[in-house]
């Protein structure tokens, strides 16, 4: 059978040409095809005039693809995989799915732009939901490319992935297997563990957790920044291991910030109570308290804060209150995936407050900062230079 490769190529070239994106080499190929036959020229003119395109689109907009699929489905022999999926779904008590973003496709398209445009004309884009899931068997799944889909772990746990969020169903199993989620710079992701505990992961962060928790406790390992809304279970304490600190909770909401490049673990309690443990030292904190644990020094430093402000990132807000410029820029560099340079390093210690939408262009934040007249920025592709 003929493969129609040439036809597919010409279609590509014409569509590229119509948006003005043809390279000189492609121009030559298209010209060659055009000069080959008078009919080719006629076809080309017809496509470019847009007449048929209009009629075609009117028809296409009337087509009900979903309905047609339902009709077709009946004629396709059911596969084992589908049956298994349905049986499992029936067994699951409750699976919560919260939409995070609409227009995932738009983001995918946007991401493609970032990778393929010349660096000089690339605009700095805010982060979006993206993450890499590492399954127990070592398989890696790029989550942002998966829409509304389900994955089975080896022990039979159903993992549902939908628009920026991953949900684990609860199941009684004896063996413990682990999954890891890695969120890159410029990303964020949401996760619902098998005990219904919700976890928000910020850019450049990682979490390791058992697919099903064991009988005694619920242990996870974190690096970077994460917000936990822990499901209450008095019999099974929830334990977050972060660097050399152990955060032990029963049911509560709190934020943990512990990037490898910083020598600290910052735990901010929003609700409930948590117990921190580092080597032999222990400390119980109350809501609106923030504990800074240094990995090089000893002990805990406690301060009173408005805890909600420290977890606003998960609600799409970039918030800093009287923070060092270096801290602010570090956060920006993770979310927008940019590099920061200081012309004058003493600027790092200046303090600023800022509150903006996280999904805005980076200019929004930089404009607010420069409005103070204390600092200026120069953007050159993915590099930002901080100046006086």
């Amino acid at each position, binding site marked *: 059978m003929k493969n129609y490769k040439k036809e597919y190529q010409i279609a*590509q070239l014409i569509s590229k040409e119509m*948006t003005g*994106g043809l390279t000189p080499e492609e121009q030559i190929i298209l010209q060659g095809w055009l000069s080959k036959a008078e*009919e080719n020229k006629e076809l080309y003119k017809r496509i470019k005039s847009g*007449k048929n*395109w209009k009629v075609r689109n009117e028809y296409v907009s009337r087509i009900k*693809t979903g309905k047609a699929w339902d009709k077709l489905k009946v004629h396709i022999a059911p596969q084992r995989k589908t049956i298994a999926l349905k049986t499992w779904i029936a067994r699951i008590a409750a699976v919560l799915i919260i939409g995070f973003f609409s227009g995932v496709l738009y983001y995918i*398209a946007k991401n493609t732009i970032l990778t393929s445009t010349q660096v000089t004309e690339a605009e700095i884009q805010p982060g979006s939901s993206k993450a890499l899931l590492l399954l127990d068997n070592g398989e890696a799944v790029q989550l942002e490319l998966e*829409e509304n*889909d389900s994955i089975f772990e080896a022990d039979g746990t159903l993992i549902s992935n939908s628009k920026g969020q991953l949900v684990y169903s609860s199941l009684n199993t004896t063996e413990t297997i682990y999954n890891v989620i890695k969120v890159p710079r410029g990303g964020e992701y949401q996760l619902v563990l098998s005990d219904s505990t919700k976890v928000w992961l910020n850019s450049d962060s990682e979490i390791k957790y058992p697919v099903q928790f064991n009988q005694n406790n619920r242990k996870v390992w974190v690096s970077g920044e994460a917000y936990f809304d822990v499901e209450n279970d008095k019999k099974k304490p929830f334990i977050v291991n972060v660097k050399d600190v152990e955060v032990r909770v029963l049911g509560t909401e709190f934020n943990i910030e512990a990037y490898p490049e910083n020598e600290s673990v910052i735990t901010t309690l929003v609700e409930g109570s948590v117990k921190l443990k580092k080597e032999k030292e222990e400390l119980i904190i109350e809501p609106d308290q923030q504990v800074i644990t240094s990995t090089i020094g000893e002990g805990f430093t406690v301060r009173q804060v408005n805890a909600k402000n420290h977890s606003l990132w998960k609600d799409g807000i970039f918030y800093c209150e009287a923070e060092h410029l270096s801290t602010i820029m570090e956060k920006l560099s993770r979310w927008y995936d940019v590099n920061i340079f200081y012309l004058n390093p003493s600027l790092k210690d200046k303090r600023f407050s800022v509150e903006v939408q996280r999904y805005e262009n980076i200019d929004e934040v930089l404009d607010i900062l420069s409005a103070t007249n204390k600092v200026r920025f120069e953007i050159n592709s993915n590099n930002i230079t901080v100046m006086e």
Partner: protein
Amino acid sequence: MSVNSAFHKIKSGDVKAFEELFEQLYPSMCVVAKSYVNDEEVAEDIVQEAFIKLWNNRENYENISSLKSFLYVMVKNISLNRIRREKLDKKYEDSVEERQVESFGHKIIEEETYRILHQAIDALPAQSKKIMKLSLQGAQNQEIASNLGISINTVKTLKYRALKTLRVTLKDYYFILILLLKEIK
């Protein structure tokens, strides 16, 4: 790699992957079928049949573009069979067939171009999408502006930006050549 994995999934009987393929190609196949039979209902019926045949023969093709070609050819053949069944006039039938065979490659080029543009434009924000659709249908900026009730400058700006985005989207080899946008698990 992602495209290959989608293709292998269809080959090994993954209904979900097949649905993805169906969603992307169904409208185009209807357009081609309709160009033969000139009846929307009959056209959609033909395409159903073609997809069932594609599913039943899924083990026989080598790559995703041969799969697409299989579908196009199948739609053409079923369409011609239907015409043959209905039009008993032998002469008429021959001439239809000859004419169609000659331009089948052109039909593919035309529909593929529309499908590619449609798919790329669909990923744009709502307003830009409307503007680009009208523009590629041959409408002038002024016409688009009054049609959508916005200023001509807005049209120009959005169009400029949309074209920039489209150029990048269309540069993507996978998007364009192989049609399956994302990996299917």
